[in-house]
């Protein structure tokens, strides 16, 4: 009886959360971001302001859902990126953060905890009214065209920033091992970036490609964000010189990195 009541309550919280997210997204995109474009100059400042708004909003949204009992969450491994703000900034410079993608809510957590990351975003979102205003103002990177995505992301990494990317390009198929496309590994190798793997989990599984928003789980959902140890660029050992041999070595290095990340993201329990 109590568990059915709790489930009914969580359905209400889910409905509220989706509505709030959609509404806030549209308002942010349509009302706030144009102001940001107008008032914040130069481009760098505007992008930082937009990212701050988005990520603070996400952090508040996480708090909202957790406080109302819609979900629980656990963040571990942040010590892998340093314990002070200054340390974090240093550790994250030129870093490609890669995460698996079991549920819809992953991005919200990742950006809430890595607010200065430049996110590689699904191309379709540029045409979604909830996201488009914010994405454009923040200067996030579209994954629609792989060459321009690689060049953009590489530029940001060379500027010392950090990029967040989902190697799968979409949410994980439920109950399947992750299928990592080569974009993230290719980027890490060509940009000679450090790689920070972050393992997301969602138990029980929900908000996958197979679930509708109103299919509320029996037990309360636990979202876990686990930062794994950083993989240094030197470990990936890609030579810098141009030429066919170097490129072949880079391609092999990208394949090895892709396999390694696939292993890290494959759950050992069902």
């Amino acid at each position, binding site marked *: 009886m109590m568990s059915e009541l709790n489930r009914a309550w969580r359905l209400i919280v889910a409905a509220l959360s989706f509505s709030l997210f959609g509404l806030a997204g549209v308002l942010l995109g349509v009302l706030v971001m144009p102001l940001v474009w107008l008032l914040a100059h130069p481009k760098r400042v505007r992008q930082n302001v937009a990212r701050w708004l988005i990520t603070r909003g996400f952090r508040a949204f996480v708090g909202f859902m957790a406080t109302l009992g819609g979900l629980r969450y656990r963040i571990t491994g942040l010590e892998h990126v340093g314990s002070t703000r200054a340390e974090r900034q240093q550790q994250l410079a030129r870093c490609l953060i890669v995460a698996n993608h079991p549920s819809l809510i992953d991005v919200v957590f990742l950006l809430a905890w890595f607010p200065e990351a430049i996110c590689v975003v699904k191309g379709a979102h540029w045409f979604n009214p909830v996201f488009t205003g914010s994405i454009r103002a923040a200067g996030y990177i579209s994954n629609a065209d792989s060459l*321009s*995505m690689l*060049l*953009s992301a590489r530029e940001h990494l060379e500027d010392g920033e950090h990029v967040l990317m989902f190697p799968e390009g979409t949410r994980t198929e439920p109950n399947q091992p992750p299928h990592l496309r080569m974009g993230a590994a290719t980027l890490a190798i*060509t940009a000679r970036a450090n790689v920070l793997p972050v393992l997301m989990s969602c138990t029980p599984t929900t908000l996958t490609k197979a679930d509708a928003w109103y299919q509320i789980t029996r037990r309360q959902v636990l979202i876990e964000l686990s930062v794994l140890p950083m993989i240094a660029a030197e470990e990936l050992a890609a030579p810098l010189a*141009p*030429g066919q041999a170097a490129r072949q070595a880079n391609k092999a290095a990208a394949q090895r990195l892709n396999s390694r990340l696939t292993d890290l993201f494959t759950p050992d329990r069902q």
Partner: protein
Amino acid sequence: MKEQDILDHLKTVLVDQFEIDAESIHPDARLYEDLGIDSIDAVDLIIQIKEITGQRMAPEQFKNVRTLGDVAGVIQAAST
């Protein structure tokens, strides 16, 4: 820069650095399908071109680049 100069530069880089047949190189040659250039190669190629021509080109300009002619077009647009 003149379009022909750009194409000549591209040809040199492709033959010397990418070991591609000079005969395959023409403006309509598609990077992936005809020349076998994948993403790692393409990024390398563009970086080398940037160094040779000294042009700064924004990543967005490379969206929808499919052929060598497209690449040359982006470089030429950047130099005007």
